[in-house]
């Protein structure tokens, strides 16, 4: 069965003010893929994420998204900001805000959306927290709330920006297991920027490594055999 191509990046250059961070970048994300973007700080991982989300135009080349994704139906899990940590909002309020992308000019949530939000919260195991205040939750619970919100926005693709940063090891493992479940059982494609090489290699089906102006794209096995992988993933073999 041919998998649907969700993101098709062709010969793309990205950067700021003429300074390219990525050159001639080509890769594809198909439905059901689990792509981990790895590399040092400042190598352009966040820049790539921004252009995948349509917040930045590539300097050259084209990024083609599947038509449904372009309408804003991307589930995005951004890095947490400090302002959110003391924000007065209930879990339900946060999760429901994931539906705004698809609302067009409608102003209020429909009953169908409300029950779907409850379903996503149930799937993430936070249903009993639904009336709790977001700022009183643990880091792992907050990440689950944001993940439920992302699920409300997206059916096919989740984009995550360093999701385990600031989580304790147990909560991080929990999150990886949840993502694995969403990827393998619900068929959600996942694109994740991460520093956690071990888990990237464990769960990811493909790896995109950002070096300075160079890059590697391939399966996790291919990556381990490449010069990049030998340097960074060596402790696994």
């Amino acid at each position, binding site marked *: 069965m041919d998998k649907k191509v969700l993101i098709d990046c062709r010969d793309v250059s990205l950067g700021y003010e003429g300074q390219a961070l990525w050159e001639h970048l080509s890769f594809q994300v198909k439905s059901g893929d689990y792509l981990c973007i790895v590399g040092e700080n400042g190598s352009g991982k966040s820049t790539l994420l921004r252009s995948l989300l349509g917040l930045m135009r590539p300097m050259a080349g084209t990024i083609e998204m599947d038509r449904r994704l372009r309408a804003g*139906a991307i589930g995005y899990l*951004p890095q947490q900001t400090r302002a959110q940590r003391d924000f007065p*909002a*209930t879990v339900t309020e946060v999760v*429901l*805000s994931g539906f705004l992308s698809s609302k067009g000019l409608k102003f209020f949530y429909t009953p169908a959306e409300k029950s779907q939000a409850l379903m996503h919260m149930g799937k993430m195991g936070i249903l009993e927290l639904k009336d*709790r205040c977001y700022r009183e939750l643990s880091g792992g619970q907050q990440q689950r709330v944001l993940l439920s919100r992302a699920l409300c926005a997206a059916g096919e693709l989740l984009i995550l920006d360093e999701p385990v940063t600031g989580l304790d090891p147990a909560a991080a493992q929990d999150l990886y297991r949840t993502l694995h479940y969403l990827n393998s059982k619900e068929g959600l494609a996942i694109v994740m920027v991460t520093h956690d090489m071990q888990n990237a290699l464990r769960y990811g089906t493909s790896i995109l490594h950002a070096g300075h102006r160079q890059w590697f794209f391939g399966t996790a096995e291919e990556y381990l055999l490449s010069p990049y992988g030998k340097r960074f993933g060596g402790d696994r073999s």
Partner: protein
Amino acid sequence: MSILLEMFTYPFIVRAFVVGILVSLCASLLGVPLVLKRYSMIGDGLSHVSFGALAIAMACGWAPLPVSIPVVMLAALLLLRMTERKSMGADAAIAVTSASALAIGVIVTSLTTGMTTDVDSYMFGSILALDRSDVVLSVGLSAAVLVLFVLFYHRLFAITFDESFSRATGVKVGLYNTLLSVLTALTIVLGMRLMGAMLISSLVIFPALSAMRILKSFRGVVLCAGVLSVVCFCVGLTASYLLSTPVGATVVIANLMVFLACCLIAGIRRRA
């Protein structure tokens, strides 16, 4: 009791109640996203710009509101841009803008009319400043602010809670930030005559802060801020009538009391 009833026989006090209740309601609603987005200083900056605009209008003999509304809206957009471009020290930029606007206002007035009671009433508010046209304008604009706030409530929540997520899912964040600051500008210009340029920003900030101490949901905070703000205004205005104190300052003190009470409640709850 009779003294309270007697209060409402003065048409200027009735006008102050109408305008004040509407303005404090609008200010407190807008205040919740502003405070949470760390934009509190914008309100303060705008009120000073508004004072400068009023001083110039008065010196030239123009009607105050038609001059200051566009000027303050423009300033609101400018301050918003400064705040969004985080690199250049937004808080410093706002502080500089507001001090400059205040200085221009003071120089213009001292060169023309001098520091009269008019100027004093712009600085610290006056219950006598409102005429019939102010009331009509306030009712219209407040209605617009309230309708827009209710319609865009969920979007305002989303961009307040998480701008990058909203942007990524296709919500026009820039548009709603602009909407927020334009509505704030309108509210501040309207409230300034009554509350004074130096004190109006407290109407934006205090109710949101108080409500955030004691409530946990965004909707709860918004509703509570609105109620607290209106109650504080009514209490403040009545107290200012009974004690013959300036209305703006009295309303601010009422807000301060409520804020302290909310802090106390939050503290007791944490102990228990």
